[in-house]
């Protein structure tokens, strides 16, 4: 049982062209038993961050501490962590049993019979008891994935580190393993850092998610907070599929002026802007309401460009009648709508996000019935 803390962690690589910053000044604390998902686009430094915690990558500056003990200079052999690799990295010359007992044999002085017992218990937990004598090459991808998990679980480490463990599975198996992994982590109560580029995994699995971009930490919060109250434009655009619509706008005379539309603001929002004039207006596709006729100044005449039916909902690409700007809205799957239709898009005042165009920082997030949100977060 452990708390893990990263304090101003920085990692740079030397290259011919100079210094490359992979992880820049990341600070965060992970509580005992917490499941933290680190998410970001590829190349954002999330794997490097995980490898620094694992001791596979040196730390340029800053500290990583486990249970309030700085472990920068502790070799990964002595860190009492277990890692699940994207490629599983199962030892091909050992049986499943050999793979699972290797870590216990090397890191503890337990007698052989006790190790054997722990291995069979863990195998039972994961439903791989019947595979123990087989070689990794004889297993399917899903089975290999379970063995890789088992190899980590059997060691009962202070921290689990997982580097995109589900990304080599097919979609159906991935969804199944996602749920299973979550349940396992809850049962075992081991502090876990889980790296992924998949936002579904990030949203559904973690107690909290940490969003990384260009080596910098953008936001660490619960999934719902990140989704509804993003700290900046990057987080807002990264989470959600289809992603949030953004419009470059200027704030003039109490109105947001865009290429294709003017959007009047209420007094509360105006105050939040605090004098900034170059802004970005954001609205999530599911918050856009489609109507027959315009009835107020938040309604805009648009033409349907493309409709992508998803079954439960339709993704509708809309084009403003004036200007060239487009936006994406999601409509109910039973809505009858087709390309070329004229529709009115309503952008509700309570659902808009406003970002500073220069810094990307969120100036105003959608208003939520905060009781509902905190209830959802409890």
């Amino acid at each position: 049982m452990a708390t893990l803390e990263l304090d101003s962690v920085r990692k740079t690589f030397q290259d011919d062209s100079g210094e490359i910053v992979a992880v820049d000044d990341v600070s965060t604390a992970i509580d005992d038993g917490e499941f933290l998902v680190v998410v970001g686009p590829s190349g954002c430094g999330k794997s490097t961050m995980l490898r620094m915690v694992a001791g596979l990558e040196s730390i340029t500056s800053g500290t990583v501490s486990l249970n309030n003990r700085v472990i920068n200079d502790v070799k990964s052999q002595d860190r009492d962590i277990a890692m699940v690799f994207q490629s599983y990295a199962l030892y091909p010359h050992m049986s499943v049993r050999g793979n699972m007992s290797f870590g216990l044999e090397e890191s503890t002085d337990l007698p052989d019979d006790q190790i054997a017992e722990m291995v069979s218990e863990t195998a039972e937990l994961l439903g791989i008891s019947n595979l123990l004598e087989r070689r990794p090459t004889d297993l399917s991808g899903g089975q290999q994935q379970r063995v890789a998990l088992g190899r980590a679980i059997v060691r009962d480490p202070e921290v689990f580190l997982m580097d995109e463990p589900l990304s080599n599975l097919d979609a159906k198996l991935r969804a199944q393993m996602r749920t299973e992994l979550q349940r396992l982590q809850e049962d075992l109560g081991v502090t876990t850092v889980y790296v992924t580029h998949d936002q579904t995994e990030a949203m559904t699995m973690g107690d909290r998610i940490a969003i990384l971009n260009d080596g910098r930490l953008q936001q660490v919060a619960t999934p719902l907070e990140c989704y509804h109250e993003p700290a900046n434009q990057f987080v807002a655009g990264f989470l959600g599929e289809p992603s949030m619509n953004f419009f470059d706008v200027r704030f003039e005379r109490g109105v947001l002026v865009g290429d294709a539309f003017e959007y009047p603001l209420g007094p509360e929002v105006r105050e939040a802007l605090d004098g900034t004039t170059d802004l970005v207006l954001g609205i999530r596709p599911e918050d856009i309401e489609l109507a027959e006729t315009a009835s107020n100044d938040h309604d805009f005449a648009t033409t349907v460009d493309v409709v992508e039916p998803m079954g439960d909902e339709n993704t509708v690409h809309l084009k403003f009648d004036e200007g060239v700007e487009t936006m994406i809205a999601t409509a109910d799957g039973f809505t009858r709508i087709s390309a070329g239709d004229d529709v009115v898009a309503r952008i509700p005042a309570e659902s808009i996000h406003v970002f500073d165009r220069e810094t990307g920082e969120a100036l105003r997030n959608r208003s939520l019935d905060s009781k509902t949100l905190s209830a959802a977060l409890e």
Partner: protein
Amino acid sequence: MFDLYRRLSGALGRSSGNDNASGNEARTDGGVVSDRSVPEPGSESDPGPLARVGAAVDRRLGSDFLESSLFWLPPFLLIALFVYGAIIWNLLISLTDYRGFANAPDYGNLDFEMYTRALADPGFIDAAVNTLILLVAFTGATLAVGLLLAILIDRGIRFENAFRTIYLLPMSLSFVVTAQFWLWMYNFNNGIVNLLLGTVGIGPISFLGDQTIVLWAVIFALMWQFSGYAMVVYLAGLRAIPTEHYEAAQVDGASTLKMYWRVIIPQLKGATISAAVVLMVFGMKAFDFLYSLVGGYRPPNGADILATKMVREAYANLNWAYGAAIAIVLFGMALAVIGPYLVYEYRRNNL
């Protein structure tokens, strides 16, 4: 054979239509003949013995067996004659008493006299034991040194390519050159090895004169020449192991030594086997090295191996049949090395 060549010309010149054979013969080339539309019971039901044999061969060995024989048959016959034919001829000679200046071996009286003579000959026993020691010690030492070099180079040292070339270079030298080179190195009076040992107060040692040491001196020289080869084979094996295996072992708590011993080296089994087979074959061919070392058929006392003894018996002493018998024993040893390897590769579906 007639059928074979007819079929060949049929296969190669089908479009030219110059095959003027008619009736049942036309069928054998597999072409669609227009007059087949009217079945003629007499000729059609009995295609003739040659065609039947051809069809049977096709059924058994695949439809292109005869047609492709133009390409594989000539080299097959050449190898059959000059390799396998020579082995069989050698075996026959070893069963005769052929020696001296007799015109031809007498094949009328075949027995195993030469083999019993070999078993009673202390020179043969010594040579056989030396050959085995050479095979095992040379192969083992070369593999160990090669593995060590490969692991060191694989750990990402500077000037990796230069080191790789330097270590591999001795293998490109001929046995004659390395033998001369080590003759100088081992020189009793002013060889580098003895000079170096002299600085720490050992020696001088007569490496090539002392029959308890000379075999080991030869093994060391051969190891120097071939450890670069073992290194390259191991390096290729190491490069095929994903980095995650090293990292997983580290995270699992294994020390560097344990990581190599339990996770990395076991995965080099394939590389070890193929390098060992090649090295053993080189070890058996150490004749050139010993011949150049002394410039004759009589290697230093204590370093006689089967290959040198075989040549000496045959060409220096004109004991043709006895030399042939030794050659057969050597052939048996080579088979014992290669055979299991072939079986291993066959099981892994590489053959």
